[in-house]
């Protein structure tokens, strides 16, 4: 039905005329135009919002920009860089943290939306020096290579074994089906999660 694509269509798409107009921003990833910028600056006029976040059992009062994700706030102002961002679109799950004990992608949640809910990150999983059984099992089974996806995988596996005492291999695969480990540590991750479940039941 549609014909071929004309240059005009595509040019429109990139927001530029043949010559003359700047390609909006963009380059490739930013929002063109200034309309969104600066509009609706919330709160105190500085463009910053004062919020309180409960992270790993501690109340943290911080000022953030409204558009900051939980992942950005954890890694930036809160200086907890254990939570990793691999894609920033919820497609790799490296940024998994618990919000009220449920694993979520912290790159796809606004920090301001966390509200009263309690956040647990990889930094808060061990009890003092004592590793969570999932962490210990990850080391024992070498369930990592480069280790960049590891904090997220640990958080998902820990949530699973704490809610299901006897997970099957299929349940483990389901629980981590959103994680991307490019080094391919999955077989060792399965073994580690199984092992940790046994330890917890123990």
């Amino acid at each position, binding site marked *: *039905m*549609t*014909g*071929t*694509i*004309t240059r*005009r*269509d*595509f040019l*429109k*798409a*990139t*927001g530029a005329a043949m010559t003359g107009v700047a390609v*909006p*921003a*963009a380059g*490739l*990833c*930013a*929002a*063109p*135009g200034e*309309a*969104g*910028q*600066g*509009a*609706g*600056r*919330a709160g105190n006029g500085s*463009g910053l*919002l004062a919020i309180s976040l409960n992270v790993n059992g501690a109340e943290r009062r911080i000022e953030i*920009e*409204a*558009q900051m*994700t939980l992942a950005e706030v954890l890694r930036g102002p809160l200086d907890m860089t254990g939570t990793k961002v691999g894609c*920033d*679109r*919820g*497609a790799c*799950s490296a940024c*998994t943290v618990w919000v009220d004990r*449920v*694993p*979520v*992608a912290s790159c*796809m*949640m*606004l920090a*301001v*939306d966390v*509200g009263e809910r309690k956040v647990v990150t990889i930094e808060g999983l061990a009890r003092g020096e004592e590793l969570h059984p999932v962490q210990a099992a990850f080391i024992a089974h070498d369930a990592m290579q480069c280790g960049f996806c590891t904090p997220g995988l640990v958080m*998902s596996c820990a949530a699973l074994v704490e809610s299901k005492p006897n997970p099957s291999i299929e349940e483990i*695969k*389901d*629980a981590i*089906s*959103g*994680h*991307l480990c490019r080094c391919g540590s999955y077989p060792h991750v399965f073994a580690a999660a199984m092992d940790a479940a046994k330890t917890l039941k123990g």
Partner: protein
Amino acid sequence: MNRFEWTSAGAVAAAARLGPVTVAEAMATQSGAPGTAATVLKAGGIDLLDLMKEGLLTPRRIVNLRGIPELGRILEGADGSLRIGSLVTLAQIAEHPLVARRYRALAQAAGLPASPQIRNVATIGGNLLQRPHCWYFRSLHHHCLRKGGATCFAFSGENRYHAVFAHEGCAMVHPSTTAPALVALGARIELLRRDGSRRMVALESLFLTPEEDIRRENDLKPGEILAAIILPPMKPGVRSWYERQGEQDSFDWPVAEVAVVVKLDSPGICREAAVILGAAAPVPYRAKAAESALIGKPSSAGNARDAARAAVAGADPLSGNGYKLPVFEALVARAILHAANQG
């Protein structure tokens, strides 16, 4: 993402009074630049953040619906119906015992999209109202028909994941994986208007084909808020099943999916049937020929196969997605038999 004003609504009526527009309206502009200066509602926020991160949506104000108690509940009606608040998450639906028992296709469909992390946050309302995931639509640099441009890039471009039915004008597939199950189950939705009144419509009638409106996927009116999805009481002999296939088994969009609901009488003759295809068309696609082929016949493998063949008979595949037809055919036959043969 752009900066915005952040407001949390305590009640649906309060949210409605803030003058929100639909995401489609917020994105609509004349110039090819993304939409601006609008107030939009946030449920789980997954699609909203996705659009904002791509620079496709730059709202002035975001009204947070999360935390409005009435939207977050699943309630059983006295008549055996089930009312699912629009902010109930996909994970909550997939795990709900009543849903699993009575509306199996929905439980199956809600438990599969994206990842557990996303399903723990994504809501049923957001899932139904999310914007298309066509890769041209999601690209800031492709000003397609649905975004006010002059071209559907998919017809002459890369269309392996696009529609095989009813794609007049736009080859998107409807992105909601719960919609086929909900439509097959006869779900209705409750919409709250700005003046506080409510209207109920069949979910199926909410969705718009490109011919009806190329700029919107659904008929949500300005200022309306999707409050709940209502599933009818299940009559005796009614069973449902959902099948899907992607290119891989983890974290993948389906290339084909189907929800089937059949009502069998005691000798096993099919009296009512719904066969809804997903990842097939710009709307959840009712395979009417398959439904007719089933009614009045026993649910045998041969009849399932005939119905499956009928389901794809009218398809009009694009240059790169003809493979979807045998996949749909296989899935429809399997879903019918699974639905009919479950206990």
